[in-house]
């Protein structure tokens, strides 16, 4: 008797099968193959990661801790001074980047956290649109707010 015969005659069955994740394995639509968005979002994620690493700590420390603790001279965050600073075009551009880029960093990581850590495999495209869409919305809103100052 061969192993094949033994297996054919046994009452063994597959105990459990993991769900294969949704989505076609072959990309058929040519346009989608040419205009892949992943490099763009990964690039933004990476830029956001650098902004968050290099610039966020000092901003959080100053705005969130130092100001409340009274370690800053009182005129530092006075209305007139901040208005004057934010009116400078370079400062506006800098603040726009400071607000928007970490959002893309979050969007990319959160999208994969939902997929890998929370195990939600079914609405991959919807989750991606929701995450990146939030970041894009934040980019637009911050531009609108900054232009209104």
């Amino acid at each position, binding site marked *: 008797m061969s192993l094949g015969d033994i297996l054919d005659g046994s009452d*063994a*069955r597959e105990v459990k099968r993991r769900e294969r*994740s949704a*989505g076609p394995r072959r990309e058929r639509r040519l346009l989608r193959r040419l205009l892949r968005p*992943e*490099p763009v979002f990964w690039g933004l994620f990476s830029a956001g990661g650098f902004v968050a690493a290099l610039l966020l700590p000092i901003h959080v420390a100053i705005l969130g801790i130092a100001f409340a603790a009274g370690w800053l001279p009182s005129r530092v965050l006075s209305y007139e001074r901040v208005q004057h600073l934010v009116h400078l075009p370079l400062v506006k551009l800098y603040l726009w980047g400071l607000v928007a880029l970490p959002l893309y960093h979050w969007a990319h990581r959160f999208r994969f956290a939902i*997929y890998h850590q929370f195990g939600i495999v079914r609405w991959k495209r919807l989750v991606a649109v929701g995450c990146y869409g939030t970041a894009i919305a934040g980019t637009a809103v911050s531009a609108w707010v900054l232009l209104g100052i």
Partner: protein
Amino acid sequence: MAEATIAMKVARYRPEHAGEPYVDEYRVPYREDMVVLDALNHIKDEIDGSLAYRWSCRMGVCGSCGAMVNGKPRLTCSTFLREFHPKPAVVEPLRHFPVIRDLVVDMTDFMEKLKEVKPWIIRKEEKPVEEGEYLQTPEEVDAYKQFSMCINCMLCYSACPVYGRDPEFLGPAVIALARRYNLDSRDEGRAERREVLGVDWGIWDCTFVGECTVVCPKDVDPSAAIQREKVATTTDAMLSVVLPHRGGA
């Protein structure tokens, strides 16, 4: 009998008997220089001939003997029992793969993915033999050498939670090998491989957990290969907007 022994707890699964996997415990004579594979061979030779497992070179170059030893993906031929003695050693089949029998796992998925990335030199035109060999400087070899050390042992797949969650993911070893050929100065197939790598279940599914690099017995560092491939793909995509026919790194 003062002979030293060690307890081996080995996962068993016999498809010809219906039901769940179970654990068999064996007592094996112990010496300082024994590895897990020695213990498995002793079990098969002297105690229980029905135990099924893969092995070949017994020196860490063939990649056949991968298994979970005390919860970590290891090569059984390179894992010394003295790490665990006097506590028992627990041997289970490589995680994230379907189990055919005992410690033998189904490698079909890995083998199919390996073929997909075309791990061979791709040339637009083959150089005829009369023209001689392809020449490479030591620097050109260094560019890809680390990634060529892969022995296809699949320990990285067992360590990768992304592969565990999503079996569609190409996986660390396959992407590292694709990069090995992309970086080879003799190769001209980067664009072909990019079509395979640049999809959702290719390089972009990786979240740089980094455990694949930690468990690799040959220091291939697949997580670095994947992130560098992401950087290269992103740089190429951005530059191709400005310079349409630029080849990339």
